[in-house]
């Protein structure tokens, strides 16, 4: 756990995001109809989902660890990761909706990807409701860890597998390949991958901050 108190990766995260702010807005992008300049949103909208996925994966990791060891800190880490992930989820959804408004025409067009994202939100809200419904601390930690692990594969199927099977406006669905297939040229990759990495680290950073606050709160309540 020493990793979360170190500074170097936070500096890297900030530098990466800063660089993508510049490269993402200045680099040449492919000229596509309808999308026009909004293709640059790729550097800002998609990394939100990457950040969410990263903290959710970390959360599942700590849920597994909690079940193995029974240490309370692992449970706290898992729940704070979910909280942070939900913020990134909301940002991803809002930016996606804005982007959709000016390319597809509606904020919410009932697209499979959008619907799946909404269902995944319900899944993690259910996780938080489950936590609140149990008073006893150890029992709460254990049961919510189990639900977290149980829900994660379903979330992956929902967001990353099912929309690919159906017709959708969103790239990477149905017969509609992801941007990566045909127009993510090398120039875009240069800005896209650092953005993914940088935002994942930022999400992780926020989660660790919350986790550290939670630890102090917990210690105080214990006394």
């Amino acid at each position, binding site marked *: 756990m020493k990793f979360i108190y170190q500074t170097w990766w936070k500096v890297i995260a900030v530098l990466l995001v800063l660089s993508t702010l510049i490269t993402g807005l200045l680099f040449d992008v492919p000229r596509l109809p309808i999308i*026009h300049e909004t293709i640059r949103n790729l550097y800002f909208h998609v990394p939100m989902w990457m950040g969410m996925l990263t903290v959710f994966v970390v959360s599942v990791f700590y849920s597994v660890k909690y079940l193995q060891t029974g240490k309370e800190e692992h449970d706290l880490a898992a729940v704070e990761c979910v909280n942070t992930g939900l913020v990134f989820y909301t*940002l991803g959804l809002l930016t996606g909706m*804005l982007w959709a408004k000016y390319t597809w025409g509606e904020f919410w067009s009932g697209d499979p990807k959008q619907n799946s994202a909404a269902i995944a939100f319900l899944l993690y809200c259910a996780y938080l409701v489950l936590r609140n419904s149990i008073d006893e601390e150890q029992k709460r930690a254990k049961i919510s860890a189990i639900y977290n692990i149980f829900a994660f594969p379903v979330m992956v199927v929902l967001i990353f597998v099912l929309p690919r099977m159906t017709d959708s406006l969103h790239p990477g669905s149905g017969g509609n390949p992801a941007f990566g297939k045909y127009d993510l040229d090398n120039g875009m990759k240069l800005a896209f991958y650092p953005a993914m990495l940088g935002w994942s680290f930022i999400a992780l950073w*926020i989660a660790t901050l919350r986790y550290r606050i939670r630890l102090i709160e917990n210690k105080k309540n214990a006394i």
Partner: protein
Amino acid sequence: MRKLTLLILLLCCFFGAFAQQTQTVEMADVMRSSGKIYVVIAVIAIIFAGIAIYLFSIDRRLKRIEKEK
């Protein structure tokens, strides 16, 4: 206090009228001009605003802990 509410109410009326005037053709508003670059700007603004709000909430939580000490 009453004057202030009246003022706000009037202002709201003004904005309502203002919005009606501008809401004509949806095809050529600001967001769609110059290659829709403003959409990108709005997206970045949303992300930054979201993270800023989140930072404030964390800050408040930390303040509460500090006070208890």
